[in-house]
């Protein structure tokens, strides 16, 4: 286990270095310098600048330094815990990151809170009895919900729940401070897809386990059905879904982009989207590093869960 952690940590550092270097290289183009200038001065403003003034402006903003020097500077700062400042928002990246991550964490928490019990229960119920009516209903519902793009769900839920019935606000900007109601639409949008997905995975794992020989052994031992399911089947069937739930943490970072942008929820996804569109390199760098960390840590957690739930791996 310790080996695994160390290996993952090294892998994470390597990926972070590669990715940050890549990003720096990408954003070191004239195109992105001009983008930064347009973002600050506007298309009309920049058109008034002479070539010299433009260069002076770049110099002033520190955008004209050689690429490696900037990268080295940045690395040094990051090593000292300084993630830089957002050009667009004029805030320390660390602050921005902290707030947006906290918001996304809240969203993710509620997603998991709804996702885990509902999806696992439905998946197990469906997989327990492959081909039964309940299985068919659940499976059909799951495949349909996983077929609806989240943009469509988001808009439709807004039409019905927010503007039609007026139950919840249409947007989740939470201008009056945190409350749960504005979270409902993003939550439902994410849940609808994710539940379907996890149900399908759980069902597949469960049917596979139910067809296994050790379940046959358990049944032919004369154990009551609940004992077979709860003790023999679940433990094995949940290995895959549980590892998937951890991996889902990483997937959520991607999914929240659409949902947060559409519902204007001030989370990590929206920050990422804004920064990428604006070319806010420091934010993007830091956010990407966080994303990589989340990716690697969720992978690690998933491996750990797999190891923990799977004695075959645990006692090797």
């Amino acid at each position, binding site marked *: 286990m310790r080996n695994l952690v160390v290996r993952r940590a090294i892998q994470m550092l390597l990926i972070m270095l590669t990715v940050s270097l890549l990003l720096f290289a990408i954003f070191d183009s004239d195109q992105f310098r001009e983008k930064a200038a347009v973002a600050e001065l506007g298309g009309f403003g920049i058109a008034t600048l002479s070539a010299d003034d433009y260069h002076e402006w770049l110099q002033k903003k520190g955008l004209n330094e050689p690429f490696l020097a900037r990268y080295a500077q940045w690395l040094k700062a990051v090593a000292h815990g300084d993630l830089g400042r957002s050009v667009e928002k004029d805030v320390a990246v660390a602050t921005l990151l902290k707030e947006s991550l906290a918001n996304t964490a809240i969203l993710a928490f509620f997603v998991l809170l709804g996702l885990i019990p509902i999806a696992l229960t439905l998946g197990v119920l469906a997989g327990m009895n*492959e*081909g039964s009516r309940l299985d068919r209903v659940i499976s059909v519902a799951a495949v349909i919900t996983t077929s609806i793009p989240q943009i469509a769900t988001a808009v439709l839920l807004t039409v019905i729940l927010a503007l039609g019935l007026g139950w919840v606000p249409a947007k989740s900007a939470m201008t009056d401070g945190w409350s749960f109601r504005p979270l409902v639409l993003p939550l439902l949008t994410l849940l609808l897809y994710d539940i379907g997905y996890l149900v399908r995975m759980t069902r597949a794992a469960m049917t596979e386990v139910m067809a*296994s*020989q*050790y379940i*046959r*052994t*358990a*049944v*032919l*031992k*004369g*154990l*009551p059905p609940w*004992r077979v399911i709860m*003790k*023999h089947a679940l*433990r*094995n069937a949940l*290995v895959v879904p549980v590892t998937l739930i951890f991996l889902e943490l990483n997937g959520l970072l991607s999914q929240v982009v659409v949902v947060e942008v559409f519902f204007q929820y001030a989370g990590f996804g929206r920050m990422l989207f804004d920064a990428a569109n604006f070319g806010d390199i420091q934010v993007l760098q830091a956010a990407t590093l966080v994303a990589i960390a989340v990716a690697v840590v969720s992978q690690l957690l998933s491996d750990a869960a797999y190891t923990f*739930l*799977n*004695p*075959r791996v645990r*006692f090797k």
Partner: protein
Amino acid sequence: MSVAPLLECKNLSISYAGRAGDVPAVVGFNLTLKPGEAHGLVGESGCGKSSIALAVMRYLGRAGRVVAGQILFRGRDVLAMNDAEMRRVRGGAIAMIYQEPMASLNPSMTIGEQLIEVPRYHEGVGHRDAALRARAMLDRVQMADATRIMHSYPHQISGGQQQRIVIAMALLSNPQLLLLDEPTTALDVTVEAGIVDLIRRISAEFGTSMLYISHNLGLVRETCDRITVMYCGEAVESGPIADVFRGARHPYTRGLFASNPSPAADKNSRPLRSIPGQLPSPRARPPGCLFGPRCEFFAVDRCDAQPVPIAPIAGSGDHSSRCLRVDEIAWDAAPAAISSRAAAVFGEVALQVNALTKRFGSVSANDGLSFEARRGETVAIVGESGCGKSTFAKILMGLLQANSGSVQLAGLELSRLPVTRRNPQTIRALQMIFQNPFDTLNPSHSIGSQIARVIRKLGVQRDAAKVREQVLELLDLVKLPRDFAARRPRQLSGGQKQRVGVARAFAGRPDVVVADEPLSALDVSVQAAVSELLIDIQRRERTTLLFISHDLSVVRYLADRVVVMYLGQIMEQGSTEQVFAPPYHPYTEALLAAVPIADQHYTKRKVLLSGEIPSASNPPVGCRFCTRCAYRIPGTCDRLAPPLQQVAPDHQIACHLPREQLAAMRPVFEEVTP
């Protein structure tokens, strides 16, 4: 007078729902099992024998269904029981032992938990008592270190131990009936012998009735009182062991015996006879006698007129047969003569192996192998799992490189020459037949194209028409219809695929063919056909055959020379006669004794090995076999490497035992003089 039967199957028929309607698996099956009796159910794969056991447990899955008949357990219809009753029967009155112990144990529960469940749910025993009983039962199935085992997970113990756990689990509820579904098929021979011994002891000790399902006639003979032979879902012959083994009264049973390589068989003078033809598909069952199309006694318009019932044979006790002509056939007459072969003449040394050593980290997979094979000779390499025989094959084929030693093919050093650097001649000269028929052919390409590729690749032929001609000739050679060239591997049976494998190996007219367990996954009757084929082609081509196997009966039949390996080392080598007769290496002796013999004319001496095969990564010091050897000389065998004793010209045994003691060993089999 007669005891009430424990289990009765009356006219039992089982079908599985398929995509195109029901497929019958068992038809009109009858069985009566008395208390304390052991009944063997024998047949080749797909004959429906496992379905019967599962039907008794009422566990046929979603697709399976009993379509007719009754299963009476202690006079009560199992099919009519309610769920609660059924639960009491399952694992209580009837317990089952499975083919694959690893898959049958829950990987995420400790063995203790799985054992304790049985008394807890069947007898409501408290946890502590249940644990005590489980431990006690582990002792009774001769599991050492029971406490550790109780806390272990299934993957942490060996296959043999796992099967003992499954047996212990079955016995914990004191069942009246044990269903054993090929309980030793997945195990090594010497381990199998231990399990078979255990089963025999249990049935004696507990008085449990057994339904023993196996494809191995020898095993059934050694464990059962009665036997039922099944063919295509029907029982074709049934009777007491002695009666059936002495005088089979159904052509299929006879065919099975004739294709079984008994000690009496000899590839030159008494070749095996395989059953012609193939199993019919369950959808296209022939009219009348199902075995009709393959039967040498088939009578047109009689055998195929109407379904043949199973009927008691006149003048016998309770021996019955499903043959119309049971009274007409001269059962005792010698089978139609099969042309015997002339003994082969061996040529010069084709392959020379000298002190070959291969290590994977700390594991020494091959340790100082030395032997040679001559042109036209069949050399068998025998050993159980982990003995290093497959590693050796890979070195030979250039897929692995040896650490030291040499392998010379016609003077060319191969031990460190990867296949990618070998010249086309060498590659052509050395080909291989693989173990798993389902894996040996690429499922995506037609048979013809796969053979043709070999012909072109090995440079035998380039011209398209000639390549095609040669493909067809090769199909002829392995006795497959020419239209198979266009077929896909999945349309072929296992035996047919293995024939294609043989054709492919011989397509380049190789000098040496390595056959890695080519028969082990095949049914007995198919095994016989393929081995006959191998011999014929080998003779014709004067090929050297390196035959890797764990099955001593096949080796005895096929090989000219035998090399016995254990944990990477050669224990004994010599001609087949020399190895199969005293003096033996103690391991060879145990191996021989572990082979079940189906032939009534032979008796076998009992030699049981203790323990399991040690891990190859941590082999014993001294003689590697010393941990299991009954003749172990303490202080010597476990310290010093054994000397190589030349007991006869060409016969070497690596053992510390004095030559006299070796010479004094009695043969393992002895022919019963009638």
